[in-house]
């Protein structure tokens, strides 16, 4: 991890417009955003406000139409596909609403996937993956396939996969959206703990209760940032 307080994600003036043959659909306008190391940012906004697009841009799954995104010192708006893949692999951990685990392989193998692509040797891979599962409290599920474990456990396996490569930032898209409230709370306390240990988190959610776990709230509306405020902890 880099020093706390240092800017891990600097978004300056980005816009995104989807173009088809006949029309162009602007989705994001002039977004400026700085996220410091160790922050826990909740992003809220109604459907279609551009939250997902913003997450995809930060997650290096898409490129902005204008402006620049600097992640951990790398300007990702101008990198090649291969470089972007490398950034995703090293600096970003994704947590999805639907978990997105590979159904045919076991939990530990799911957690190993990012390590496979960063070329970590087999034994080391297994060790790191088991450690990650252990830190999420699902070590006993290591040899289970996703359909053999509960939703909450699946999301914990997914978080283990997200953190296994020690990323600079975790991007969570509605991480509790498919969970009951109890599992949801458990998952959020995991995020809370991760954040306390210094991991930067960016989380999209509809739920104000979930959003309140963050330290900062950003509201998007029609492709623009309309609110950026600190969250007071109760």
């Amino acid at each position, binding site marked *: 991890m880099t020093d706390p307080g240092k800017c891990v994600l600097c978004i300056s003036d980005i816009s995104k417009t989807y173009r088809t043959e006949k029309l162009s659909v602007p989705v994001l306008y002039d977004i400026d955003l700085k996220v410091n190391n160790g922050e826990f940012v909740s992003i809220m906004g109604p459907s279609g406000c551009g939250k997902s697009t913003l997450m995809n841009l930060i997650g290096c*799954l*898409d490129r902005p139409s204008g402006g620049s995104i600097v992640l951990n010192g790398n300007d990702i708006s101008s990198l090649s596909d291969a470089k972007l*893949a490398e950034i*995703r692999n090293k600096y970003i951990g994704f947590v999805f609403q639907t978990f997105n685990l590979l159904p045919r*392989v076991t939990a530990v193998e799911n957690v190993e*996937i990012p390590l496979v692509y960063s070329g970590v040797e087999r034994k080391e891979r297994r060790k790191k993956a088991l450690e990650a599962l252990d830190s999420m409290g699902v070590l006993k599920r290591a040899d289970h396939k996703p359909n053999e474990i509960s939703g909450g456990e699946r999301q914990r396996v997914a978080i283990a996969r997200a953190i296994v490569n020690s990323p600079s930032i975790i991007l969570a898209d509605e991480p509790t959206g498919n969970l009951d409230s109890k599992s949801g709370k458990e998952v959020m306390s995991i995020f809370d703990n991760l954040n306390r240990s210094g991991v930067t988190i960016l989380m999209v959610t509809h739920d104000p209760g979930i959003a309140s776990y963050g330290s900062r709230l950003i509201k998007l509306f029609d492709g623009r940032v309309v609110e950026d405020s600190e969250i007071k902890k109760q």
Partner: protein
Amino acid sequence: MNIIDSVLMAVRSIFANRLRSALTMLGVVIGIASVIILVAIGEAAKLYVVAQVKSWGIGPNVIQINPGKDQTDISAYANSKLRLSDAIEIREKCPSAMEVMPIIAGTGKVKYGKRDYTVRQIWGVTENYQKIFNHKLTGGRFFTKGEVDGRRKVCVLGKRVVKELFGNLDPVGEKVKILGKKFVVIGVFEEKGKMLTFDMDDVLAIPITSAMGLFDTKGIIEIDIAARDVELVPKMINEIRAVLDKKLSRDDYQITTQEGMMNMLNNIVGLLTSVIGGIAAISLVVGSIGIMNIMLVSVTERTKEIGIRKAVGAKKIDIFTQFLIESVVISFFGGLLGIVIGLAGTFLIMYVIKLEMVVVVWALTLAVSVSAFIGIASGVYPAMRAVNLDPIEALRYE
């Protein structure tokens, strides 16, 4: 991502869909196995033909003259312009020729007492027949020059003819009727078996002079000529041409050496082998289409997986190799299994039809490279499809 990881991943994914992978592999297995079996049969047939021709015992110094300009000219046999006098002239004027034996052939009913049998090949030949063909007798004698010149009605019977007409009796000295004419049996050929499709025991030899009367023909269908030495064959051919060209055009007769004969037979069998092998190769193409099809299905099915892999850091090349290796593994193991089954099948078939087992190395090599090529060729396009999936779309895919 290293290659061992990729291969293991491919194998796992193949095993995850056992039945589907097995059926896909089957296409390659059948293709490779049938190519190997058919090519091996073809090669064995070639050896068989050569062995048969050699067992017939015609020396390499023997050439044959037939009517017509080439072997395809079948109709020329019916109205051959070759005459007995040509054979005699060749014997007189060609110093390199040691033996000259003209042949007239026909077919017809042979009677002994109340029994009758239609002999497939009735040959009118000269007394030196046995010097050209290695056809021994088990009883009696062959006819002499005197009997040929004297148009004597004597005959030598093949084993099959003896069996049909005489059963276990000794035919030598008995009288038979050939096309209604009385002939005396003076000898019996030893059993020779089939040469290619031709039953060498279903024959009957009579003096050529008698045959001309019997079949009412003057057309000679073959003159076999033995040179004094193999080395003299080209010289002898020139001498023969000098004689025949005075009377006949080059379209009226053809000369075949033993070498030419062997080449021709080899060419025919070789052509058949390639044609059958080619047909078998079509099944390989079908197998390859099968792999491509399944790989395309697999890419669609695993769209989400591809999205996840990309999100956690898979590069395009990683996705590409993942799918390509999967298809190569399927076709490689298909090919391997095909070779095993192909060899086993060849062995079985050779055992049943009693031919010598031939392992055709080039066919094996070809089969292996073809199956590897198929794996790559049919994997590239689906793998490209996987590579070009948009990760955002892929993650959203349900």
